[in-house]
């Protein structure tokens, strides 16, 4: 009895129609139709947005694309939901990726805590601990460490950028804006412009936010013009 090819498929379907209850048949056909239709529609939408549904990217892929196109409000909503649903995995995928700290494993955080205990006057140790805690998502403790680092030595490289991001994550838009503006005076990095854009956008300063998003996009498009 041949079971392969079209004939085999026809036999399988005939057996299924004989054996399966009508309710299950209806449920299955409804699911098949919904899935088949979704795949077709999804493919068309993926082609429209990206040329082809991309394999390289994560849940923030559209947010990034929308930023590139200047649709900041939709991009922000994409990032907000990605971060809300899966903050652990996707929180670090936001545009501020280059300012993410090294993985903040509990062991690493504990080592850094030990360093700050051994040398409580070290601004660098507090900054590193703040970064690691930020990567872990412990915003309250991260901000405590970063603010302590600022009190000890406000001129540390990278401190304002990290503080700006931490304030942003904590929803402290004004403080974030202040820190990020300070950070940008030292390093006109496109990610910092994006972060400042978010901080401004959240305060309703849409036009200025758009200017910073545009600035970030321009800087990314001209990497050779940036200082190394």
């Amino acid at each position, binding site marked *: *009895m*041949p*079971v*392969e090819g079209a004939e*085999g498929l026809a036999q399988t379907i005939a057996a*299924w129609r004989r*054996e*399966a*209850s009508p309710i*299950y*048949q209806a*449920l*299955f056909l*409804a*699911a*098949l139709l*919904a*899935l088949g*239709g*979704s*795949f077709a*529609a*999804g*493919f*068309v*939408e*993926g082609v429209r*947005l990206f040329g082809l*549904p*991309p*394999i*390289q*990217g*994560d*849940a*923030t*892929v*559209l*947010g990034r694309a929308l930023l590139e196109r200047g649709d900041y409000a*939709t991009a922000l*909503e*994409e*990032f907000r*939901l*990605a971060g*809300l*649903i*899966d*903050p*652990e995995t*996707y929180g670090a995928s936001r545009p501020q*990726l280059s300012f993410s700290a090294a*993985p903040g*494993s*509990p*062991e690493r955080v504990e080592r850094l805590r030990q360093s700050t205990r051994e040398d409580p006057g070290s601004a660098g140790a507090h900054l590193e601990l703040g970064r690691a805690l930020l990567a*872990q*998502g412990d915003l309250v403790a991260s901000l405590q460490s970063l603010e302590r680092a600022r009190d000890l030595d406000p001129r540390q490289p990278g401190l304002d950028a990290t503080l700006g991001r931490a304030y942003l994550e904590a929803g402290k838009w004004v403080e974030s804006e202040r820190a990020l503006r300070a950070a940008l005076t030292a390093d006109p990095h496109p990610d910092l412009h994006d972060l400042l854009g978010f901080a401004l956008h959240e305060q309703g300063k849409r036009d200025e936010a758009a200017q910073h998003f545009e600035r970030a996009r321009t800087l990314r498009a001209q990497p050779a013009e940036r200082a190394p």
Partner: protein
Amino acid sequence: MSSLAAAAPGSSRQLLPPARVFVSRPFDYLTIGGGLSLLVGVALALSGQLGADTPAAAWIPFLVLVSNSAHFAASTVRLYTKPGAFRLWPFLSMGLPLATLAVLGVALLWPERIGWHLQALYLTWSPFHYAAQAFGLACMYHYRSGGTLGELDRRLVFGTCMLPFVFAFLDAREAGLAWLLPAQLLAGQPLLEQLVRTLGGWVALLVFVTPLLLAARLYASSGRGLPAISWLIIVTNGIWWIVFRFYDAFIWATVFHGLQYLAIVTIFHVKDQVARPGNRRGPLAHAMLFYAASLGLGYLLFYVWPFAYRLAGFGLAESMLLCAAVINIHHFIVDRYIWRLRKDTNYRVVTEG
């Protein structure tokens, strides 16, 4: 291994009895056993490439597609190509797809209230699924190699395999205990937080110590331990969940977990198909067709499907995340059924040559 097997000359007592493999020793040990993941992990670690944001990580999206995404789809392909599946599991095969779509719809409608719970459920279930796969494969090789397990020993093997899950349950930041316990409760109780962390550390240690104790127990009680490949599977899962996670490199484990699954599911599929009356294709053709179907379905599910919801007005971010969550959960449920050995053709595949 042979020297260990010969530790008790003249008797049948064997601490590490030789494994009866499915394809060949190198293939089984490297793919199903997880040996390849350890070799690649060591090579990446030595070259400083183990972790995020490294040149090697640029390969990950491609590897995730061909291995991990394909493996999720493979359980569905296996379900619908397994002889008699519609009759055996009518709800699983015909009702679950629509139920899955309904759950996804609800989660997308209320992403902030329900969506993240679905995400947390899948992240909590995932380490259990990995551990259950390690347990199933370890037992499979043991039975295939002529071994048996009493009820107590079976439970001890299960408990040993579950330790990485317990560790992940305690250690996860957005799932497991952190999902079930209100965040405020832990935040306000530093002692409790410290207790959970300490407990996690002890469980991590147990992940690697318990197999040694279990091996001694099995040898003492029955004179026959698990074959080396079973131990490799169990320990490798522990390394994935503890060592790879420590280096922020768990994504590599998902690739090798997918490879492990694809290898074993393809073997079972091929053996079932070749044994069907009227079969005209060779094993390689069946394997290639099965993989092609899994890869294609994996691409559609993970990379195309979310765009349909984007078209329907949902954000792509929650569509991608929640599609991935329901695909994972569907996979976990389907796996509970399609790998049963008792009264199933799977048993023939495990025991036959």
